[in-house]
């Protein structure tokens, strides 16, 4: 049963790790705006696509 001391210690360390991650995420401002990133991720990078398409076309020719 003594293993429980170790297990609890480890589980607490893991939990503290998550707490630290959470505090870090808050501190770097990841929770400041919970709307814009959801919109931003849906934008495509069209210019680069256009360029690569052109390059492909050129290569084909």
């Amino acid at each position, binding site marked *: 049963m003594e293993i429980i001391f170790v297990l*609890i210690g480890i589980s607490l360390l893991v939990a503290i790790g998550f707490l630290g991650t*959470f505090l870090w995420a*808050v501190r770097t401002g990841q929770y400041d705006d919970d709307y814009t990133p959801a919109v931003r991720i849906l934008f495509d990078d069209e210019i680069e696509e256009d360029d690569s398409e052109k390059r492909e076309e050129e290569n084909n020719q």
Partner: protein
Amino acid sequence: MNQESNNKCFHCGEDCGPAPVLFDSKKFCCNGCLSVYRILNENKLSKYYSLLETPGIKVTVEQEVPRSKFAWLDKPEVVEALTEFKDGELSRIVLYIPSIHCSSCIWLLENLHRLDPAILRSMVNFIKKEVTITFNHDKTSIRKLVELLTTLHYQPEITIEQIEKKEKKVINRRIIYQIGVAGFAFSNIMLLSLPDYFAIQEGLTPTFRSFFGYINLVLSIPVLFFSGFDYLASAYGNLRKRVLNLDLPIAIGMLTLYFQSLYEVISQTGPGYFDSLAGFVFFLLIGKWYQSRTYQALSFERNYKAFFPVAVTQLIDDGTTQSVLLSELKANDRLLIHNNELIPADGILEEGEARINYAFVTGESIPVNKKTGDELYAGGRQQGSRIIIRLTKAVEQSRLTKLWTQDQSRQETGKFKRLLDIISKRFTIVLLLIALSTLLFWLWYDSSRALIAFVSVLIVACPCAISLTLPFGQGTAMRLFGRRGLYLRDSSMIENISKTNTIVFDKTGTLTHPAKHKVTWHGNLLTDEELSLIRSLTINSVHPLSRAVTNSLNESKLIKTENYKEVTSRGIAGTVDNHEIRAGAAVWVKASVEPDPEEGSKVYISIDNEYKGYYLIKNAFREGVAGMITSLTKIGRLHVITGDNEGDKKRLQQVFPYGTIMSFDLSPDDKLQYVKKQEEEGYHVLMIGDGLNDAGALRASTMGVSVADDIYNFSPASDAILQADSLQLLPTVHKLSRQTMSFIRISLGISLTYNIIGLYFALTAQLSPIIAAILMPASSVTVVGFVTGAVHLLFRKWNTQKSNIIDDKTL
């Protein structure tokens, strides 16, 4: 319907009118919209239009700002104040852009680097309507960035306060950290307390018990001294000031829980109440956080500084001009005021034709003409050619600014005893009395259990559920109001609304629509042909009065106008179908002016030098005003106060019931005194206003609501901003606030019941950690569930008539 959509501007979606600007086989309503389209198209940014239809912002010719206006952005002190971060050749600034409204805006503003290579990256915060731009300050400047944004019709709003404020804005995330720590400790302590919850004895040696106890002890140290620190500090502060509030029983409860548990763990007499402590702090913080969530993009504390330009053009003796910050202006300085610029301080017109629009001050949008030597007041906007004024006062000494600056602190005339204050005072006193009598009783009856009974009382009396009721009840109501167009400064304003029993209206701009006009003809009867002659002439002018006449005649057909001319502050003339038409002031059409008591602007008309009559133009009442006023009479007395003269009394009496008190010719200071007097007589005033001249009155009232056609544009400091087209909801708002407060009272009753149940265990000295661990979360969850559910049900009865209101997300 189809035709209508075909006539929409490709950029902004507004109706293009009779003469759309055509380009690329697309229709545009004006050259402004077209120029933005061309810039975007040339830079391969036309995706802006494919994300959403007609995302653009229309900027009318009158709103356009001359390039020279931004010269002050090159001043080193301004650059320094605006720069958030500077390193090597890179700078970062945050600009507030009120016109951000859709995903196309986000896309365009985050692709600014394609328009100016000196911009490294730009990030939009949609909720705050801010864009953060990182740029190379050797290759571009803040001024150029602002100019770029302005050409795209995304004009940033930079205020004097931003420049004057030396310390940078710090986002306060402390409460989030506190919640995080408390939540972490709460969940882990609960896990380690499981053996106690299920009374597991088997296989658990005392070593384990004390091991769990000590871990809990360690975990709850940050809960008490970091997460709960604010409560302890506040209780101590209030105690020194001899103020009783809810923080005192909270702090007592927290400390008792902690030290009792500490004692139990060290003496190995029990597991302690660490789970209750952590849960208690966790729930309290959640309530506090919920309460602190308000509308980030709206500002309720604006004074004139948010609305005046940061700098103006000063004319120096040698004839040159320079850009000066407002704070540097003195009396006797001479200023150049261009079209559409604000007059920053009181002064005298020295040169030029002044047509001043005092819409921001009085809510009246029709400009007034001023002659050389006339006095001009701060806050007016020049419309027309540029003028030169000589200041008579510095900015802060001007008539209106003085009114706003004289008491910066919110006046507490609208003070009434808040429900929370009453409850917490009584609660604390009763609690301390019960605890002391328990102690005395047990000392006399069985002194060995006296201390534990005393401690138990302090533990179960923790006002957790009580302190959650108000934030959740009012916060829910606040958010539901927001969906319908009423934005409260903070959630406690619900209580202010429910207390009001007198309603004071400002007339101009609040009851009347600043841009919609009621046009009536006084004079000879006009034939259809004459009507179309008049319309053909007036359609050429952008003057608001001409527009009002044009719009009122929109059924008449248009004929081509020749020899059109416009003389500022006189009128317009032209030849239509071989008839000479003149419209404008009485002298312009050579009419003999008959005295007319009715208030309003007049446009005189003559055809072929024959005087025909005049159009009387008045601001039209907003939609639904009449119906709203009838239901408002149930709340209390109605007052109308206005800076205009009595000309409109008749019209007001048609809408307002008998007994409404109307006062005319009031100066902004009179309005403030008027509301103050009502408050002092014991009435709680709900003041509805819109202009800067109402700012004092709004602040003096129990509940000051400013009505705004565009909620992101300027509105004076107030307790709430009401979207103008939601004005007719006022009676419902009052009713719902009252009902919300009743549900909050019921909910307070429920939480007190829990405290009484707990007291039974405590008084009989039977309280165990497990009972505390059940009671505390159970009471919190039921109370929060009850009050939010009840408020939601309450608002559901009120069907969402308005679908065009922006939802919470965008605020």
